[in-house]
């Protein structure tokens, strides 16, 4: 435990000293990045020790704050979430030490490092605090730190707007969480998690708590329809911050939901239903919106919505399994959820870092302006390819393992006796297959248009990024490959958190790993054979082409030899059939301006997939609220004596009420 507290202290101290040394760029970088890295290593050590030994750690401060104690605890669930946090924060700091270099003169990097360190520290506190009050304080610190990180380019209007939307979204969520903890504490009389766990809540109360938690945590996680801040905030933030936010911070919402499951069980069937429905909607809409985006980082942000949807599906399946006394589905669902949390942290972190490398080298993330980067940036391209394959859930990499488990959970749902389960399982497996196909379309588009072909505009890269940016990408890529290839070795690490979640539910004891490991070994066998066949074929072609003529010529142009790189298919045209087919769901817009003169010159075509939830629901909604509230403006006239009158009136009102109440 002392290592974690030391780690948090390192984050705070190094962050502050980085701010102090702002004027000395090298010292600032060393303190900021070095502090994050040192603190992360210390934290990683504790997290692995808890996860492997299975013994939870506790720490109580000897001083009290109002309404609760200051106590931290690391159990298996916390430790499990701490691991991707510290890995990504470590790699992100290393990456940023090069990524931010060209900004050293223009921006205040000391502030950036302060908030980066604070963000990591606050997320560690969120994961370890075992008192509701401390949790909500850490949660708020996390929101504020990430708000300031999103505001990195504060002189840009778009960034300010993005940060503003994020701040509002996160505080609406926090309001629900405040209600969540207050209601829970009013039942038990204490904000401590221990008291929640010991108390048996009536089903109505735990249902209410679940609903509040779902909105509060869901707005952080990015469930549709609370996802609006993601596609705004991720593109605005620096890439390593987007990686940390998308890879880990949105998972704090998932952690919150899992922690509530642990504390407020036993589960109720409708929780599972709600999570499965949210999962299907978020998954399909997320990937559909991602598909139509023109900006790589916006695309990745929507794809996070999709993956959060998949995690929600997994949790829903787990809960439904538990409620239907089916330990197999319960195990598979929660295993898939936990594994996908880690998997998504790794491949989405990798993809955001790759997007940052593209931005760094080519100065744009507009997909339709790029092309052919694989030649100038071979290292980034290969890492991005690994990330793309992994996020599509294709075999050999980690995404496949979690999707496999989810498919299995759904399949056993089909077989279960309950006919409601049959229907749910059929719907969610079909959705999952659809999401898989759409994700493939989305990431072949992203990779294909950015890295393959010829450059589509003058904005192109001339060199690959340096070692400090490559190492984090390759570290994450290898983690993806290790989990994919050796899943049967990795999955036992999930047992600790799983038994914690399952223990709150009396329905049954989850199945042992013995059932699962032959399947995972089968996957590994298939993957090994796949790699072997690839190597064999490479050798075969090498032998065949030895001593033969291997020449190069331009791409076959079907007889039209005057083509420029502009005739290439762009990312938008590549996905046009899909976005057009699903336009009723994704609200994609296409405008074609026709020049009807005899020799038409000026045809223009625009396609856009705006975020319908933001444009059609939130903005009009907030406008309405603003309109109504502006009618109350007269209350706040700026005259102090009127305000004093308000205070007096309130006091009298309370006194009268108290007087009547006493009677």
């Amino acid at each position, binding site marked *: 435990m002392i290592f974690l507290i030391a780690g948090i202290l390192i984050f705070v101290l190094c962050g502050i000293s980085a701010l102090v040394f702002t004027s000395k760029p090298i010292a600032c970088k060393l303190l900021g990045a070095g502090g994050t890295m040192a603190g992360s290593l210390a934290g990683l050590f504790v997290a692995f020790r808890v996860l492997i030994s299975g013994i939870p750690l506790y720490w109580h401060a000897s001083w009290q704050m109002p309404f609760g104690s200051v106590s931290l605890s690391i159990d298996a669930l916390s430790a499990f979430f701490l691991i991707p946090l510290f890995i990504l924060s470590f790699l992100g700091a290393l990456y940023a030490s090069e990524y931010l270099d060209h900004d050293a003169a223009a921006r205040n990097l000391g502030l950036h490092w302060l908030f980066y360190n604070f963000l990591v520290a606050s997320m560690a506190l969120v994961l370890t605090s075992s008192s509701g009050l401390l949790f909500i304080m850490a949660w708020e610190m996390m929101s504020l730190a990430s708000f300031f990180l999103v505001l990195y380019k504060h002189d840009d209007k778009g960034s300010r707007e993005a940060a503003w939307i994020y701040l509002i979204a996160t505080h609406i969520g926090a309001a629900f969480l405040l209600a969540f903890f207050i209601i829970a504490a009013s039942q038990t009389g204490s904000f401590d998690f221990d008291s929640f766990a010991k108390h048996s809540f009536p089903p109505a109360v735990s249902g209410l708590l679940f609903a509040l938690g779902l909105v509060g945590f869901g707005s952080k996680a990015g469930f549709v329809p609370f996802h609006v801040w993601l596609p705004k905030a991720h593109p605005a933030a620096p890439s390593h911050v987007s990686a940390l936010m998308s890879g880990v911070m949105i998972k704090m919402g998932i952690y919150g939901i899992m922690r509530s499951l642990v504390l407020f069980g036993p589960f109720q069937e409708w929780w599972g239903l709600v999570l499965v429905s949210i999962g299907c909607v978020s998954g399909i809409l997320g990937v559909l919106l991602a598909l139509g985006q023109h900006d790589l980082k916006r695309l990745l942000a929507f794809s996070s919505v999709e993956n959060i949807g998949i995690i929600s599906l997994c949790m829903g399946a787990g809960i439904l399994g538990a409620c239907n006394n089916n330990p197999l589905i319960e195990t598979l669902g929660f295993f898939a959820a936990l594994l996908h949390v880690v998997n998504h942290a790794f491949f989405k972190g990798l993809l955001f870092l790759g997007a940052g490398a593209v931005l760094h080298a080519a100065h744009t993330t507009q997909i339709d302006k790029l092309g052919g980067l694989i030649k100038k940036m071979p290292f980034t391209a290969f890492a991005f390819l690994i990330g793309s394959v992994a996020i599509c859930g294709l075999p050999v990499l980690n995404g496949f393992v979690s999707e496999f488990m989810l498919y299995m959970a759904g399949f056993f749902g089909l077989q279960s006796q309950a006919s409601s389960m049959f229907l749910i399982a*059929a719907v969610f497996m079909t959705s999952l297959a659809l999401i898989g196909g759409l994700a493939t379309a989305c990431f072949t588009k992203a990779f294909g248009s950015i890295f393959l072909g010829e450059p589509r505009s003058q904005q192109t890269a001339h060199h690959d990024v340096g070692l400090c940016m490559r190492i984090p990408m390759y570290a994450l890529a290898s983690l993806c490959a290790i989990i994919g290839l050796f899943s049967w070795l990795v999955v036992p690490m999930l047992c600790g958190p799983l038994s914690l979640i399952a223990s709150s539910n009396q329905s049954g004891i989850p199945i042992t790993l013995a059932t699962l490991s032959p399947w995972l070994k089968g996957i590994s066998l*298939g993957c090994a054979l796949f790699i072997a066949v690839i190597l064999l074929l490479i050798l075969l072609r090498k032998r065949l082409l030895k001593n033969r003529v*291997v*020449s*190069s*010529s331009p791409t076959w142009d079907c007889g039209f030899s005057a083509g420029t790189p502009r005739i290439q298919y762009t990312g938008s045209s590549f996905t046009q059939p899909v976005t057009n087919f699903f336009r009723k769901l994704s609200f994609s817009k296409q405008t074609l301006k026709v020049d009807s003169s005899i020799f038409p010159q000026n045809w223009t075509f625009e396609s856009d997939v705006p975020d319908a939830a933001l444009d059609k629901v939130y903005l009009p909604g907030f406008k309405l609220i603003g309109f109504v509230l502006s009618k109350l403006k007269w209350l706040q006239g700026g005259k102090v004596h009127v305000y004093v009158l308000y205070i007096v009136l309130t006091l009298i009102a309370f006194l009268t009420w108290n007087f009547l109440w006493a009677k």
Partner: protein
Amino acid sequence: MGKMMLLQYLSPVLALVCAPFLLGIINRTKAVFAGRKGQPLLQTYFDIAKLLRKGAVYSTTTSWLFRAGPIVSLAAVVVACFIIPIGKCGAPISFTGDIVLFMYLLGIARFFVVLAALDTGSPFEGMGASREVFFSVLAEPVFLLCILALAHTHDLRFFSILGGMSPYAIVPALLAGISLFVVMLAENARIPIDDPTTHLELTMIHEVMVLDHGGPDFALITYGSALKLWLFGLVVVRAILPFHPASMLLDCSITLCTMAVCAVIVGIVESVTARLRLLRVPQLLIGAAALAALALFAGEGGLFL
């Protein structure tokens, strides 16, 4: 036991050896319908052998990914051959959930073919790749639904579904079989979804994606397509076959004969139907999805007629 171990390898070996023959049967059927004599039944083997003897020409636009495309996609399909059993002999890689691996191996094969097409920078190949991913978005859920319809009373492994282990339910099997047949046509770029012999790049789907591949690379692609046709043919045939004799030899030979019949049917379909307009293809696939969903619910509803 040793014999069983060896027999498991029958399915991949048969697939790897006989797959190009199916294309020969289809082409011969089409020739007979057109009143031609037709190419030899073994023409695909000759084509592959000829291509393997050639050198290679690579576009200056392409990168290593263009070269990786054919290799990765063929490797994925080859591994899929090791997963699918023929009759009761089993397959070398068999575990609960192997179907998911099978589906996703075909997915990774497609992923790399599409990327290799985009690597050429040619608008035609981009167009083909775009259509390929669009149709596969619709075809993948249909395939899954069909497999679920066949599997859900039993076990999510190929051996149980295609090995004749589960009780035969005619309504789900037929519905799923028809639906799978449509998926087979879509996934293998056959008429009415795509025309493998069309001469206009603008109208192709699969063939246009591999326009720039030549020599040994194109041999790998041709062989890979033959294997993929074999895999889907096997699934369709075993889904529809109503009886599974106890003798392994008999079971295998019946399956192989039915595969040949299936190839003839594909040839007939290609001869008597025109290619659909691209805009109509989604409707066909959605129709197949409806059939597959019906099959799933018929199975659950106990329509084991």
